[in-house]
């Protein structure tokens, strides 16, 4: 609490929550925000999965090949492991596809539309440009490829 006669400004910043909660603000006509949040979450999960992967693949060096082979055999057909691979496929596919979209838009500046004279109803050119179509394609491809991956993993 501020002292007597002292005034202080309120730091009104949502911080990291803005990067993980797409509904922290109600933003109409902004699916890019959802893609941004998903990209962040999947990025962090991929790093965590990478650590799990590295830990698991170093077991032959630490505990021998027999243990490794036994573990692989034991893991086959176990639901949590299969589910883990299914979730991993979803995370990796989305992050990869959206990453390609971001490379195109951010580094090549393509699909963001040309500057134009704003007119009612005042929707920014970028939100009407082909990057939006690209985003919908990414979402659609993600679902399709994830389903295919799921079919391969579960059968």
């Amino acid at each position: 609490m501020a002292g007597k006669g002292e005034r202080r400004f309120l730091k009104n910043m949502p911080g990291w929550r803005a990067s993980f909660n797409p509904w922290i603000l109600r933003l109409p006509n902004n699916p890019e925000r959802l893609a941004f949040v998903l990209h962040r979450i999947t990025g962090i999960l991929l790093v965590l999965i990478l650590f799990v992967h590295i830990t698991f693949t170093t077991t032959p060096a630490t505990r021998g090949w027999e243990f490794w082979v036994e573990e692989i055999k034991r893991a086959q057909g176990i639901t949590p492991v299969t589910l883990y691979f299914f979730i991993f496929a979803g995370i990796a596919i989305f992050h990869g596809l959206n990453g390609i979209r971001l490379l195109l838009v951010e580094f090549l500046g393509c699909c963001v539309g040309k500057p134009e004279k704003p007119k009612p109803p005042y929707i920014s050119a970028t939100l009407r440009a082909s990057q939006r179509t690209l985003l919908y394609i990414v979402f659609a491809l993600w679902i399709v490829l994830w389903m295919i991956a799921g079919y391969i993993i579960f059968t």
Partner: protein
Amino acid sequence: MAQALKSAARYPPKSVRVKIKRYSPETGREWWQVYEVEAYRGMTVLDALLQVKEKRDHTIVMRYSCRMGVCGSCGMVINGTPRLACQTQVSMVASEENPEFTVEPMKNFPVIRDLLTDFTSFFEKHRKVKPYLIRRDTGEQENPKTEYRMTPEELLEIYPYSLCISCGLCVSACPVSASDEGFLGPQALAQLWRYTADVRDEAWRERLEIADDENGALKCHFAASCSAVCPKAVDPGGAIQMLRSALLKYKLGLWRKKSISGPVPPLEPTGEKMPLPPEAQTLPGVDLEAMEREPVVIDASRLLD
């Protein structure tokens, strides 16, 4: 941002509840306060807030000026969306089923009191990108004799960005500004691109170096929320992506400004006469050829008599 025109034309409920997020800098206390307001067709959220201030509670603090979406002073978070209070109709945010709407100060800005936010850092960042034309020939810029040449196509390249009213809604919506105080923000970066792309400007290298900073364009992750909330369709998101693309190419030695225009040379009298169109007719009794031979001199002092 697209205005919901259909809902704007509707009648709002006769009475609405305005739920305002308040802050006292003396005590550091934050709280929500609800006020009942009589609404009418065409009433804006700013009108509702002013009615609260006039009739219910004089202590509410907010910033506003023009009341018509030009000055950019009344940016607030209304029902969770950063908007200009003067451009938001009460009928767009309240209905008979839900007559209550919330008003909060803009996010990512320090709150001075209630709905009033501090723009010091915002304008410091704006100043940092040198938002003015810079020419190598400063003498010519200080004492201009003619205007600079600019085609309509070249104007269109920068026109939407020049409509920015510095309302701060884009910064309020930006998820990167929410977690990083140092980030230049969508408004400043869009203005950086606006002057970099301007054919009359010669300081594009300086500005690209500013954008290449750790707090510059590379921190943008294209959530496009800035473009979604902009009330003037300035499109900061698009401007930043074009800036990033130019910056990358510039660093690879593949980008330089297409053209830099100079001042239009003053017109020299050529002595050529503009012929009259064939359908033009002089007044009866006027002989143009005679007038050319003997120009009519009007003595102003005689007119005064």
